[in-house]
């Protein structure tokens, strides 16, 4: 496929690997956090880690909207479907995430709740049009990439006068989360997590542009390279990061220029600004409460806000005990540090979101068999381990 195959070329990968090894031959270690689950996925799927010299480490970040959604919000969604009797429309990724007492949307559906998987907000609107006597709620999750399609649906519902449609909004903001990680005690005081630079989000950046990262690159003196999702993109971006680190620069650079412009997608930004406003705080799984890190629906579109339309009950939400997702999302632990990994918790029977989402770190470790590590932390080859 065009724009995909070229960026997976084996030849170029080997050449880039040599260049990276050369650039990294300084005797120091490099810890690069990839914020996006998409990068985690690419690194594992294409064995990018194996092409790296041993002193270049990837630290997996919290970048998957499924993984960072707090259990409480998932429990709320289950409540909407079960107690308020709505048709709950959700992206497929959310279906198997375990909520409190391991109750997931798929279990609620099996028990009779009307929960429907949709590919697009357009499908949710269609369900609302086709079922005028039912309340239809779209369970909106996602980063800046996924927010504009939600905004389009709300504007369209208003334009068309669809009154039985509303949105349970859980959209969150990437730069706020990255900043929060840099300010976390693990990074600042405890030093348990070292981050020398960031592989910046791909598709998030196609919407917000590269400018929003300027502030913390400067403030925290950490270089950011916005990186595409193909393996060569990740490698080229790694090379760019190493160069910045070696030259003691901390700039925002853009490797993914074929899609990301400095200003981003202005039309999408305008729509999002029209429909949403900042929440003063929002809870992230693993990161805790992060100020100004999420969006809510503006007063002018309050009629489409499910949180206003339905009274959600107070509830005590709990994760599965001993699931280490929260620490993994901060980069403080690895999936293999979790007692449940691969034994109690597998993709077929996930205990935490990181094992459900294909972009989750636990799922990536499991699927690509990179979970056997040597005592010194380097990856053991599969053959050697088996």
């Amino acid at each position, binding site marked *: *496929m*065009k*724009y*995909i195959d*070229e*960026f997976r070329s084996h*030849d*170029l990968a080997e*050449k*880039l*690997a*040599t*260049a990276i090894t*050369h650039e990294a031959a300084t005797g120091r270690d490099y810890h690069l956090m990839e914020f*996006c*689950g*998409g990068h985690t996925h690419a690194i594992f799927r294409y064995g990018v880690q194996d092409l790296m010299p041993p002193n270049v480490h990837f630290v997996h970040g919290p970048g*998957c*909207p*499924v993984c960072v959604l707090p259990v409480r919000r998932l429990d709320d969604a289950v409540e909407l479907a079960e107690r308020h009797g709505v048709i709950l429309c959700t*992206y497929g*990724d959310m279906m198997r995430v375990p909520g409190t007492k391991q109750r997931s949307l798929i279990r609620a559906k099996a028990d009779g709740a009307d929960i429907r998987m949709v*590919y*697009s*907000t*357009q*499908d949710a609107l269609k369900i609302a049009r086709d079922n005028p006597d039912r309340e239809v709620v779209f369970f909106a*999750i*996602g*980063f800046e*990439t*996924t927010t*504009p*399609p939600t905004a*389009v649906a709300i504007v369209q519902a208003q334009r068309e006068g669809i009154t039985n449609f509303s949105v349970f909004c859980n959209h969150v903001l990437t730069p706020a989360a990255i900043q929060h990680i840099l300010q976390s005690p693990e990074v600042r005081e405890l030093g348990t997590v070292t981050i020398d630079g960031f592989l910046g989000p*791909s*598709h*998030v950046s*196609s*919407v917000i542009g590269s400018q929003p990262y300027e502030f913390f690159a400067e403030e925290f003196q950490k270089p950011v390279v916005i990186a*595409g999702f193909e393996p*060569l*993109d990740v490698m*080229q971006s790694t*090379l760019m990061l190493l160069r910045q680190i070696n030259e003691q620069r901390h700039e925002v650079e853009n*490797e*993914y*220029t*074929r*899609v*990301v412009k400095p200003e981003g*997608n202005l*039309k*999408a930004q305008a*729509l999002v600004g029209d429909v949403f406003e900042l929440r003063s705080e929002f809870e992230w799984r693993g990161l805790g409460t992060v100020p100004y890190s999420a969006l809510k629906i503006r007063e002018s579109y309050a009629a489409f806000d499910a949180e206003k339309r339905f009274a959600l009950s107070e509830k005590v939400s709990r994760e599965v005990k001993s699931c280490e997702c929260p620490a993994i999302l901060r980069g403080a632990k690895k999936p293999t540090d979790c007692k449940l990994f691969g034994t109690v918790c597998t993709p077929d029977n996930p205990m935490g979101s990181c094992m459900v*989402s294909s*972009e989750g770190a636990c799922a990536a470790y499991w699927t690509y068999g990179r979970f056997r590590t040597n005592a010194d932390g380097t990856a053991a080859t599969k053959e050697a381990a088996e």
Partner: protein
Amino acid sequence: MCLALPARVISIDDGEMAVVALEGIKKRISLALVEDVSVGDYVLVHVGYALHKVSEEEAERTLALMSKAGVLSAEIEEIEGAEA
């Protein structure tokens, strides 16, 4: 979650919808979030919406940049090989 793939625009409706070729199948997507898209353009598709046009020029430039790192590494190897 944020799977987004480059797809070629095959046709555009009068409204905000278009048909694209995505992994060998035709798919109807929304163009509500982009401007100036024409038939034949590649767009990045995410949850049924075109998010951005893919720039052919920039794709070429990035690939060229990558091969340059390649050229550099070939030279390095040569030098190192000569030293060894």
